[in-house]
């Protein structure tokens, strides 16, 4: 099925058959190959885990898929369209959103405006954007923090606002970079609940980078394991957990 990606994500009933795929994506920094010919296809309404030891190239792959890093070789496609040559804001407008490890909220702005920024940039009026932001905050359980400056939020809430911001205007795909890092078990349960709800509520495909194996095993249907930029294993959580190559990669590094 071919879909015109330029129609954007916001068209009602956007195609569920749309995929986000990395084809032979390679990213090289002066002598270091951070991502080495990685292939993956992310479908809508699925949750794909991306794991690997520190420095495996997970974030670099997400950067390459969202326009923050031009692949040295290979390309990223959204449906039939190559997006790896686009700038980040265009990729977001085409429906591929992301979060950041550090949260990266707009600290001087109220929480609600953090989300409104994304909504107005994707075409809403300020009034509609505000209503939309309040809906998302309600959904993620932070409606009572809407008027606070984002800079004073505890980091658990910061991550959630980051996720809400990425979900503004229903993207087709959302790439979450370690949303549960540094969280307690209880807080992880919360985040797991949120991540599980994303495909159901928004219909998007989720790519989840996470170090916390409990979170990964708890929410992902499929897992992709990177080590030193290379794919070393792919499969269901149960398969990957037993894979000797994966066990060796983790033990070898820790």
């Amino acid at each position, binding site marked *: 099925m071919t879909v015109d990606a330029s129609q954007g994500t916001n068209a009602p009933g956007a195609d569920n058959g749309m995929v986000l795929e990395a084809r032979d994506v390679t990213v090289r920094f002066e002598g270091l190959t951070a991502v080495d010919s990685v292939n993956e296809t992310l479908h809508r309404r699925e949750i794909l885990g991306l794991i690997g030891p520190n420095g495996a190239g997970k974030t670099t792959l997400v950067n390459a898929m969202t326009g*923050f890093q031009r692949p040295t070789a290979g390309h990223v496609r959204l449906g039939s369209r190559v997006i790896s040559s686009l700038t980040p804001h265009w990729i977001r407008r085409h429906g591929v959103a992301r979060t950041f490890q550090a949260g990266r909220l707009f600290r001087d702005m109220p929480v609600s405006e953090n989300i409104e920024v994304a909504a107005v*940039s994707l075409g809403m009026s300020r009034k509609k954007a505000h209503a939309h932001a309040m*809906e998302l905050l309600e959904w993620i359980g932070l409606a009572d923090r809407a008027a606070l400056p984002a800079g004073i939020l505890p980091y658990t809430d910061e991550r959630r606002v980051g996720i809400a911001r*990425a979900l503004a205007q229903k993207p087709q795909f959302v790439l979450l970079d370690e949303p549960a890092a540094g969280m307690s078990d209880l807080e992880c349960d919360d985040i797991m609940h949120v991540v599980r709800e994303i495909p159901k509520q928004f219909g998007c495909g989720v790519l989840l980078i996470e170090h916390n194996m409990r979170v990964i095993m708890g929410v992902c249907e499929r897992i992709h394991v990177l080590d030193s930029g290379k794919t070393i294993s792919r499969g269901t959580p149960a398969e990957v957990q037993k894979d000797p190559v994966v066990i060796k990669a983790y033990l070898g590094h820790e």
Partner: protein
Amino acid sequence: MIEANTPLLRKVRYFWPLIVLCLGLLIIVAIVDSTGDIILAQTLVEGLVRIVIVVAIYMFVGNSGIISFGHIGFVLIGAYATAWQTCCPYTREMFMPGLPTYLLNNSHHFVLAIFLGGVLAAVVALIAGFAIMRLTGIAASIGTFAFMMVFYSAYLRWSTWTSGASSVIGLPTTTTPWVGYAYAVVTITAAFLFTRSKWGLALRSSRDDEVAAKASGVNVFGQRLLAFVISAFFCGMAGGLFGHFLGMLTVDSFYLGMTFITLSMLVVGGMQSLAGAVIGVVVISVVIDVLRRLETGIGGFSIPSSSAEVGVGLILLLILILRSSGITGNAEIYWPFKRDVSSEGALRRQS
């Protein structure tokens, strides 16, 4: 206590910071006007023109977070463009023989002339900004400085259009206190609306975190360019006002001195607030006026000349050290009455 739960009151609350600023200036202008003091009126007009400049700079600097050292270049462009249309009909050819025939033989009403001066500045900003706005951080700031140097030097040498290092004399002095006030109000209103618009919001997000802004779909380059062009337009108009206030123009008056004074005003007031831009101009203008009067001597007592610049420099340093967010702390004027309970409740129910 007043609760803003009627549509009118809600509007008043929304526009409250704007209303207070415009009313405050109105009171100042009315008082000075009623005293009939000509020297005081001149200080006032100069202050109002500076409000136009500083508020215009705020539109770009306050929202984008990029300090611009180049906006006085737009004031320069607007000032001369206005003079080409209004200056000295009988001696225009003597001062500026290189002007095209149409400009030599025709004069525009000064409102139209000032508007076109702003348009020319905006067009130049669009072209220059296309290059400069691709830079980030300090590189962008230095880029704006280089831009001003280019135009300053070019206008200084371009004597057939600008009279070069000598003055163009004989502009009609139409910038009265009330004209200055009208332009100040228009500029403040534009800055207020821009800041609250979706473009202002998107631009401020790039000020806080450029990477996250891009990831949120913000075209950072485009938003910066838009703000740069709009603020250049108002700076250009300020240039026209300035010429019609002094009645003469020299290229030298649009250079480092004016850049220093206007940026000091913005920083002292609070760079990220509209109220800060206006209050900064008022405070620094009063300080300069008092020091200037002391320089010329009052009752046998006088201080060395150039004390005004030294004074402003010291105030700027003190603000940077003690209160880097300026007098206003980067805040706007807030609604002094009870918060609107009913509409917040409505908002919650809505979601």
